[in-house]
Structures are given as structure tokens and as C-alpha cells.
């Protein structure tokens, strides 16, 4: 919330509804009444509370959404008993998980075993920082935002490897091994896909990237190379979050539950929650980079059209785009079978990586000559 100034500089239509007024007045009031140190601390507390609230809300909503989407695809009803339309099903599930005993296997490395779910969770939390949820509503608009995201997101593999190793279970170990190979490989394509947008925008800062899409989203402005980047990005992040068809790390029919075979109760719930938070975050990144984040749908110089689009609040744009991408990833999961481990690595190293490298060159040429719209 300390960097709203950067967003203030953007030439946004004054008619657009935003949370900016609330956050900046709160910011000014805190700094006026308290000393700068305490004001910063107070802001930190508010941010922490908001982040935890967001996590809880996301967990509940996304799990329910996944089950409803799955049910719809599988010609069945899905949860429909707890609450209206099964809305409180995830609440009931969470209560069950809280009350379950968290078992630790006898010969497990107890310290690492208990630490692993928290590492995965902390990584997911850290990733929230540079994401712009709405116009002027961003925790930390760091000037290397995209680099920060790529760097932190690769840390989650440590938590998974830790879980797999510490469980003292062969299935867990195999799952962790697969996960390690998979995340490290797909990081490259995801990074290159992100780079193409960085090249076009000329900035690593999230707010700059969003501002660059004021007259149209990159997906529409950047010709076919950006569409290729987008497809590669979606494939790579599906793999990075261990979702089907790339769910080899948990591969139910092969490794029972992969790296979290031995986890139960709340520790399992943390892994489960982190999976959904990670999906949300990668989809939010995708929405920000390719679909303009909270930026409404603007088409070139169509002033009237752009003006109408501005009436829809920016947070709705952001969450709408993100949930659309989440739905896409859920759709993959309930349609495709799983790849084999060598096919998975072949896909990355023989196809996605060379394509994304060539694609990056194309995007660079487009950026240099200014061929994009």
C-alpha cells in the first residue's frame, strides 16, 4: 500500500471506480496520526490480516469451484447438501481436517516433515506481495516485480522435496523426485514466456506492465508471438503447480498421493490450500501480464467503448480474468489424462523451450520495431 503513488501517475479515466481513495486516505491518516515507524507497523498488520483473510476465502471458494466444475464436466451434481447449493461443504471439510490427528511416521525426519507444509505455504504467501488486485490496491509495487515472482515461485519445490524426503516413504520420494525435475524444467518456459511481456512493456514493474496495456491487452496487441507465449505460459504454470495433466508428483493411480502420502489432518490441508493459492497466483500473474490485470478491456482509440468499460470496477476485471484462467486450468484437469514422466520432460526440453526461445526473438523484433499495436 505504500506505492500507490506509482499508480497515481497513470492516466486513468477519472470516472473509474477504485479502492485507491480508501487506501491512500488510510495511508495519509496513519502517517498523520502516528510516527512513521508505527504507521508502517500498523500497515503491516493490516496487510497480514488481509492476506490471511484472502487465503481463507480463496481456499474455500476455489475448492468449491473445483468440485462444482468437476461435477459439471462429469455429468453429476457435486456438493449440494451442506448449506444452500453445497456452499458450506469446504467449511465442513476444513473442520474435519482440523479435528483429524496429524500423524508423523515413525522413522520420518520430524523437523523437516513438520516444516515442509509451512515452507510451501510461506512461498505462496510471499507471492501475493506484488500482485495488483485492483487499481491502486497492491501490497508492494516493487520495481523488479516480475523477477521477484519468478524467483520466489521456484522456492516451493524445496518444500515439496523436503516433504518427500522427510516422509521416509518410497512413494513420497518418487513423487518429490518427479516434482523437482518437473518444476525446475518448466520454470524455464514460464520465465521465457514472462520475459516476452517484459520485453514488450520495457519494465519489470507490475504497475508499468499494467499501464502499458491501457490501449489494449498484450494478448491482443502483440500479434501471434504473444498468443504463443500465452499458451506456453498456461502449459508451463499448469506443470509448475502440479496440476493434471502434469500432476505426476501426486499421480494418484501411480504413487497413491505422491509427496504428501504421509501427511494428514491440518498439515495435509496446508498442502492442499497451497495448491489452490498457487493456482490463483499463477493465474493472477497470467491475467496481469497477458490480459491487463485490473485494466478494463480497452480497444485503441474507441473513446466511447473504453469509457463504458471503465464503469466496471477494476477489481471485478482482475478477479474475472483470474477466475477465467483458473477455470481453464480446472478444465484441463478434468479432461486430460496424465503424461508419463519422460514425455513430460520431452515436452519441455524438446518442444516448449526451443519454441519459447525462438518466440522471444520474434517478440524482441516486434518490440524493437514497434510493430505491436
Amino acid at each position: 500500500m505504500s506505492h500507490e503513488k506509482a499508480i497515481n501517475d497513470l492516466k486513468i479515466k477519472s470516472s473509474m471506480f477504485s479502492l485507491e481513495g480508501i487506501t491512500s486516505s488510510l495511508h495519509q491518516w496513519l502517517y498523520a496520526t502516528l510516527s512513521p515507524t508505527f504507521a508502517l507497523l500498523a500497515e503491516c498488520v493490516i496487510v497480514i490480516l488481509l492476506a490471511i483473510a484472502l487465503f481463507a476465502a480463496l481456499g474455500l471458494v476455489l475448492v468449491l469451484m473445483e468440485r462444482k466444475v468437476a461435477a459439471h464436466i462429469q455429468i453429476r451434481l457435486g456438493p449440494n447438501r451442506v448449506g444452500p447449493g453445497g456452499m458450506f461443504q469446504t467449511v465442513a471439510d476444513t473442520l474435519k481436517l482440523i479435528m483429524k490427528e496429524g500423524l508423523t511416521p515413525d522413522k520420518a525426519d520430524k523437523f523437516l516433515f513438520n516444516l515442509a507444509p509451512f515452507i510451501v505455504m510461506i512461498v505462496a504467501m510471499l507471492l501475493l506481495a506484488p500482485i495488483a488486485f485492483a487499481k491502486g490496491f497492491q501490497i508492494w509495487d516493487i520495481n523488479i516485480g516480475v523477477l521477484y515472482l519468478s524467483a520466489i515461485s521456484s522456492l516451493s519445490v524445496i518444500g515439496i522435496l523436503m516433504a518427500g524426503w522427510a516422509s521416509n516413504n518410497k512413494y513420497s520420494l518418487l513423487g518429490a523426485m518427479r516434482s523437482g525435475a518437473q518444476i525446475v524444467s518448466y520454470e524455464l518456459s514460464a520465465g521465457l514466456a514472462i520475459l516476452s511481456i517484459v520485453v514488450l512493456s520495457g519494465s519489470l514493474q507490475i504497475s508499468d506492465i499494467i499501464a502499458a496495456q491501457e490501449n489494449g491487452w498484450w494478448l491482443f496487441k502483440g500479434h501471434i508471438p504473444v498468443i504463443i507465449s500465452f499458451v506456453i505460459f498456461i502449459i508451463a504454470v499448469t506443470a509448475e503447480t502440479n496440476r493434471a495433466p502434469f500432476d505426476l508428483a501426486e499421480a494418484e493411480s501411480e504413487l497413491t498421493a505422491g509427496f504428501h502420502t504421509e501427511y494428514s489432518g491440518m498439515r495435509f490441508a496446508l498442502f492442499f490450500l497451497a495448491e489452490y493459492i498457487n493456482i490463483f497466483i499463477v493465474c493472477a500473474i497470467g491475467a496481469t501480464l497477458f490480459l491487463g490485470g485490473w485494466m478494463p478491456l480497452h480497444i485503441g482509440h474507441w473513446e466511447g467503448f473504453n469509457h463504458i468499460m471503465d464503469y466496471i470496477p477494476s477489481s471485478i476485471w482482475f478477479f474475472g480474468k483470474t477466475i477465467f484462467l483458473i477455470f481453464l486450468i480446472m478444465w484441463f484437469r478434468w479432461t486430460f489424462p496424465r503424461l508419463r514422466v519422460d514425455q513430460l520432460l520431452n515436452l519441455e526440453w524438446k518442444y516448449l523451450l526451443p519454441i519459447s526461445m525462438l518466440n522471444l526473438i520474434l517478440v524482441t523484433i516486434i518490440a524493437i520495431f514497434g510493430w505491436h499495436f
Partner: protein
Amino acid sequence: MYTQTEIIKDTTINGSEGELVINVGPQHPATHGVLHLVITLNGETIKKIEPHLGYIHRSIEKMCESLTYRQFIYVTSRMDYLSSHINNEACALCVEKGLQIEVPARAKVIRVLMGELTRIASHELWLGAMAMDLGAFTPFFYTFREREMINEIMEDTCGARLTMNYMVAGGVAMDLHPDFQRKVKLFVTQFKKRVPEFDDLITNNIIFQNRMKGVGVLSGEDAISYGCTGPVARGSGVSSDIRKLYPYDGYDAVAFDEVLETAGDSYARYLVRLREMHQSIRIIEQLIDAIPEGDFQAKTKAVLKLPKGEFYTRVETARGELGVYIVSEGGTTPYRIKFRSPGFSNLSALHHMAKGSKIGDLMATMGTLDLVIPDIDR
């Protein structure tokens, strides 16, 4: 619990360094029951597969020795529970062969119709379960939608959905439900309409094809040597359909094709089963309007006594050749009975098919072998 010993002396396996031994089962999502495989791995590559059976062994052969010829038929429903009807048919045929009972024409047609419906239901379940082994959950629900209709047809006539116990020596236990023909016709039209969905969802999916083509290859010669039957053998190009080779219950009177594929891989086995469903539909369509009137059961004595001697019948279940071998001493109970189950022989080829491949391939291979564990253990 188990010590590692060499199952097959294999010179291609060298050294024990870097080996990882994992137990797949008896509780594992991909074994669909209580099969226990001890797998030796090198990384992700399978070096050795050693099945440990018996978790659901009930010694049905011993049980049958103390049951009469009327009773023992129904125990076999619990062997291969997915084609229980065809198991019962095999036993009834064997008793009929011993007593030289002529089965009425109506009973024969009913048997064939029920047998083909059972085969479709079994293949539907296999299709869903195999897709699940490959990590796709959705096809399961689509296949169960069709299977449910068959189960309801069975329930109407036989009073049960899975273990029908509809056979008696000399015919079938009771006449068809009045609704039978209408429901079967409805099922046939629905099935034909919905099968293209499977092709869209599974057959033409590039990931599915990549997971199955060239995986778990079994040559025709090996298939014969390992005693593989049913779709496993036919996927390797071995003609083994008992309905064609040794027709029983009037299968020689209906027109259908034996489905053969020559590749011998998982995809070939998959295609064979998919096309077999169409052939079963073809048989049903020919017979559903041509059910002859008359008795559904031949007149038999209250107590059946097989003459002294040996009787062997074989039928084509959904999984392959089921043989029933009865040794009679002339009493009311069999002296010795042997069930040659298709799953047992098919399982013995698993090590040969899956060694050297990845864990994911093992699941694809096991999925297309269509193992039903009680059929293996008996």
C-alpha cells in the same frame, strides 16, 4: 514380510545397485482390488515385477467339491464378478454337457443376450477404470452412465445387478421381464448415440495415444506361450474368440466379427475392447426381435448326478477364455473342479510386458490387461 528372490532369471538385469523396491498394493488405487505387486525399480524404470496373490483367495475350487451340481454354479459369480453371468453360463454348460441336456431355443437366445449385455457392462467399467489409471477421471462417469442402464435391465429380469445368478442347468432361472425388449432397444439406441463421445474424449486424445502406443507390447507368439486369451491375445493378433472357434449356445447362428489388432500394445488392446462392444451391440440387435417362444428351461431331475468321467467347457468371458473342468465320480457333487481363469494367465505375462518401462507404463499395461482380482485368486 517378503524376501526378494529372483522370479525369472533374467540376464538383462545387472547389478543391484541403485535399486528401489516398492510394494504396489495390496491397497493401491491402480490395482482395483487386493493385488500385490512387488516392483524393483531403477529410478522410474521397472526392472522386475513380482505378483503376490491370495488376498482374496477363497478356494472356490475346494468349496465346489462339497456343493451339488445345482449349487456350485452360483459360487462362480464371485470369481470374475464383472462377467458373473458368463461364468455361470460356463458351469451350466459343463453340467449340461455331462447330462446331455438339450437347452430350449428360447433359453439359448436369452443366454446370449444376457451374456453380451454383461460383456458390454464389463467393458464399460474397464474403459472408465483404465482411463482413471491414466489419470483422467471424467470418462469413468460417462461409462457408468451406460453401465447403469444395463444394470437396471439385469435387475428387472434377474433381481440382481452384479451377481445375477440367472443360470440353471438346462436353461435360465426365470422368464424375461415384460419390459426387457423395450429397455434393451432403448439402451442400444442410446449407446450408439453416445459412443462417439468416448472417441472424442479418449481415443482421439493425443495424450492417451502417446501413453498407450508402443506400451506393454506383447507379441503374438508370447501371448500364446503365456496363455493369454481374450482381448489381450486378440490385441496381439491371435485369434482366440471361443465364440467363433468353439461356438456354444447358438453363437454360430449370429453374425459378428472377431476383432483383431496386430500391434500388441496397450492401444491395440484398447481398440479391441472398444470394437468388441460394437460387435456385442450387433449381436443384441440381431436377437432382440427374434427371441423364440417356448420354454425357458429344460425339464431336469431334482437331483443332478453327472456320469463318471471328465468334462471340460470353455466360454468367452469379457476377459478371455474361462475353462471349467469337472471330474466326476458319479455322485451329486464334483470330485474335482478346476476353473481356468483368464486373469490368472494374463497376469503371468505382466512382468514380460512391463519390464524396462516406466511406472506410468505399468499402470497403462495393467489397465489394458483388465485384471479382476477375484478372478485371479479364485
